[in-house]
């Protein structure tokens, strides 16, 4: 999961967006496939190909989704999940970007801190939840911390490799203009790394939502994750699937918003 993979992915997205009618065609095909699959689902349930209480027809799920919306509880659940995801994400962004830049530029700090980061990085997020409950309880602090921890790594790694990949010519150009260290970091290193940082932030954008839901499922009293578990226990697969539907839509929307912001903030991406 290098910065470069992320960049390639974004560039692909961009060109397909720019390609006008062709891009529209491609998206239409995507929706067509979706419609076909959903029809199969509907049919498989109604025609009795799959007989299970956990396999309601799609139409029931959509009905449940609309009812949920009217009741308002799904929006409350979504809001509390998003709030946790957002706080954790922002904390991870600040820590990941600052540490990524500082460690890449400072040898002493790098030698001191990088081993610690490398040890924590491979731990699967769910595995650290139970021990963390002992320290942080089961409330927001735990969930936000977990989100931040999981989001930190892609942001940090992309920033770190991004800084390391800056061409020396750029740094030396700034040095011959007698740029101070702080100014060098803020006005040269940071903007030069923005495309890589954006790639890390994008990975973290989807990750933070996943982890927020996960933590709510393990130790929750509110949020979409908790709602999913609750509806499962209540044997309400229609509500459960509907909630998943909202989650998918939210993830999709977040990604679109991110891409739009990125195009505005990093217009030179892949251009130099």
């Amino acid at each position, binding site marked *: 999961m290098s910065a470069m993979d992320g960049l390639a992915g974004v560039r692909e997205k961009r060109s397909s967006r720019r390609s006008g009618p062709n891009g529209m065609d491609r998206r239409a095909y995507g929706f067509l496939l979706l419609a076909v699959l959903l029809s199969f689902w509907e049919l498989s349930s109604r025609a009795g190909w799959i007989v299970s209480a956990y396999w309601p027809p799609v139409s029931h799920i959509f009905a449940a989704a609309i009812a949920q919306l009217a009741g308002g509880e799904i929006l409350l659940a979504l809001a509390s999940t998003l709030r946790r995801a957002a706080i954790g994400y922002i904390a991870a962004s600040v820590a990941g970007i600052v540490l990524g830049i500082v460690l890449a530029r400072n040898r002493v700090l790098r030698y001191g801190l990088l081993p610690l980061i490398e040890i924590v990085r491979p731990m699967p997020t769910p595995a650290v939840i139970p021990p963390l409950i002992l320290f942080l309880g089961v409330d927001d602090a735990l969930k936000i911390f977990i989100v931040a921890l999981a989001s930190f790594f892609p942001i940090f790694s992309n920033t770190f490799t991004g800084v390391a990949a800056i061409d020396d010519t750029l740094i030396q150009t700034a040095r011959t*203009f*007698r740029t101070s260290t702080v100014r060098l970091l803020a006005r040269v290193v940071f903007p030069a790394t923005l495309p890589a940082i954006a790639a890390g932030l994008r990975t973290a954008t989807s990750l933070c939502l996943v982890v927020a839901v996960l933590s709510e499922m393990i130790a929750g009293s509110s949020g979409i994750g908790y709602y999913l578990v609750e509806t499962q226990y209540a044997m309400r697969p229609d509500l459960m699937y509907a909630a998943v539907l909202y989650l998918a839509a939210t993830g999709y929307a977040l990604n679109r918003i991110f891409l739009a912001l990125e195009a505005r903030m990093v*217009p030179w991406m892949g251009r130099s």
Partner: protein
Amino acid sequence: MSQRLGFDRVTKVFEGSGNDADFVAFDDITLEAAPSEFLAVVGPSGCGKSTLLRMAAGLTDPTRGKVVLDGKPVREPPPGVIYLFQQYAKSLFAWRTVIDNVMFPVEGAPRARRGELRAQCRDYLRQVGLDGFEDKYPWQLSGGMQQRVAIARALAADPQVLLLDEPFSAVDALTRMELQTLMLQLWERRKFTAILVTHDVEEAIFLADRVAVLGARPTSLKEVIDVGLPRPRDQLTTREDPRFLKLRHHITASLLARNDGHVASA
């Protein structure tokens, strides 16, 4: 006021890592550019020209000897010593517009002077022929235009000494001639001290007052030649001048002799 920049018995050794032997980039070089002089240094690729300029810019220290700027040894990048890189594209700030690239060296100035400095930077862009390109991004410009941006930015830094590291070698032949002529105009107007390193013998003669020829490895100074061609120089008449051709013959022969020696001793 431009400054005098000298190399005083400079030796640079790159320490080998592991089993690699230490690498002597050059040995015992003494050379000085007088205030407002245009000095060229010619040598083949890989002979250490960039390393020489990087030491002049205070970007790296000599192993022995010292670089002296107006009597003071150079340690870190001194004010007014500006480096023009061969890889102009990598030296420009991709996220900044052309005008903001040129503004970079003067952004530390008090806010009250910003407007005045901005107007000045626009004027530098006009001087390098980039009127109307202020708000473009570097990637929207051709290679030659990008190097013009880098030149305008160097002017904004108020250069006393301008270090030119093969700055025109990455553009096509015609653009190269245009940029050479531009550089001479700017040099005659501003009278900074210029040190150009290049592998292009004709470029060195065309631009410089004196040409220093680097000799065999480990690179040392072979000879320093007075050009003595009249100024202002012209891309056509100067290059056809019999004295130009004679200098070219002499310097090229000198560089080729170096290579023969190198092969024979290998």
